[in-house]
């Protein structure tokens, strides 16, 4: 029996790999390495980076707080329409982010379904604010967390939870003391994916939160707006985004995704 990988699989695999790596290579090739240091030190770049990291982190925290329970409900509670709910949860994955931003405006904008009342009762408006950025990012990134955690919950051995229940633990205690530690790697992986997706979010952010340096201009927005007038700056910004993403994914992949 031959152990060699069949070429019908190897060739497309190489094509796929080249396809994914080539644009990154282009970025590295065109990068203005000699002036990289001074460009990176520019306050507007640091400001965009700082805002991006803060917003992506807050979005991830928000996703963890509401996403883990949602995943648990989807995996452990049977109720009518569960399949529909699961399908709806994944909608932001396939929705063009700009459409997501428009939808957020229609729901949470000043004249939106809910936003109108937020404005009238609490004087709260989300578009054009940093919390608006967090929300737009969370909207797009939440499914990544939910899917990852739900997968971990489904793969987890139910017998541990059953044992805890027979020993008299309530469902909440079981979740806290047994389920949560069991699925921690899945939650970690989901949080990392969620964070990376939030960090790179563009369409929903610019549509819902607008663009203003220091308040809503995250790195991807800065890249887009710098592209025409200062392509070198756009490349530098892209490199930073790339480096941060790769570092996070590489650093955590070994620990959680495998």
């Amino acid at each position: 029996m031959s152990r060699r990988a069949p070429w019908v699989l190897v060739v497309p695999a190489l094509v796929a790999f080249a396809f994914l790596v080539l644009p990154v290579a282009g970025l590295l090739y065109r990068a203005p390495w000699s002036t990289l240091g001074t460009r990176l030190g520019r306050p507007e770049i640091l400001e965009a980076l700082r805002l991006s990291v803060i917003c992506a982190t807050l979005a991830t925290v928000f996703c963890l707080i509401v996403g883990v329970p949602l995943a648990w409900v989807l995996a452990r509670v049977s109720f009518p329409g569960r399949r529909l709910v699961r399908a709806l949860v994944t909608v932001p994955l396939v929705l063009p982010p700009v459409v997501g931003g428009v939808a957020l405006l229609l729901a949470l904008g000043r004249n939106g379904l809910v936003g109108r009342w937020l404005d009238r009762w609490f004087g709260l408006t989300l578009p054009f604010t940093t919390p608006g950025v967090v929300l737009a990012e969370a909207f797009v990134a939440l499914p990544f967390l939910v899917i990852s955690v739900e997968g971990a919950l489904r793969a987890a051995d139910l017998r541990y939870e059953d044992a805890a229940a027979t020993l008299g633990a309530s469902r909440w205690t079981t979740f806290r003391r047994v389920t949560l530690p069991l699925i921690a790697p899945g939650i970690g992986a989901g949080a990392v994916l969620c964070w990376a997706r939030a960090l790179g979010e563009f369409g929903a952010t610019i549509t819902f939160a607008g663009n203003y340096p220091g308040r809503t201009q995250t790195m991807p927005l800065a890249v887009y707006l710098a592209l025409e007038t200062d392509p070198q700056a756009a490349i530098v910004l892209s490199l930073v985004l790339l480096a941060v993403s790769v570092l996070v994914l590489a650093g955590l992949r070994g620990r959680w995704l495998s």
Partner: protein
Amino acid sequence: MPFFTRLAAVAVVTLALAGCGIASGDERFTLKVLAASSLTDAFGELGAAYQAANRHVTGVQFEFAGSQEMAGDIHDREHADVLATADSTSMDIAAEQISRRRAFAQGTMTIAVAAGNPRHIRLLADLANPRLRVVLGGPVVPVGRYAARILAKAGVTVRPSSEEADARTVLTRIRTGTADAGIVYVTDMRSAGVSASSVPIPREQNVTATYFAAAVQNSAHGATARAFVTWLGSPAAVTILRKYGFMA
């Protein structure tokens, strides 16, 4: 297996269509124009008029976005024939890729507000109110540069809620009620219909926006591209531009 058969059939049809395109490409072609977002409506009609008068052109295909974006794109485009921007500065971005630019239209600016002006905005100075959500074009976008000049002339400092990438996006923010006011081209207001109102900016505070067009140097249809740019100054084109509120 049926899937692959279908796939093959699709491939054959696509190739056949591509073949047709190549065969007739020498005589008849589509002119590709990259233009500032504020030209959207006027250029739609200009394109139809140009095509009607020039039978060798099968169509004029437009792409609209911020002037700076279109100018920056020329460099990486395989196929672009004409560039039209809302100021000279954004033309400079593409200076190496274009032939001589030609000013073909002018316009002025106005304050766009929600329909019926519910916030009672009357003057440029009203835009300084911190409780008002004002949206402007970004500093690299023509509509933003013109707005900055107007505000500087009037001595008004505005803290915008957002800096948008093109004029039409500024107007959309106001039409959808996301923002209270913005500074846009007078000609943009026509596209808003009844969904937005405008507060005129006095002549002494206003600026003149000048639109430029140029043929792209490595265009495959250089002669036609240059002819189109010249045609923008013809009586037929001027009539259409004026109809949309431009000074031409």
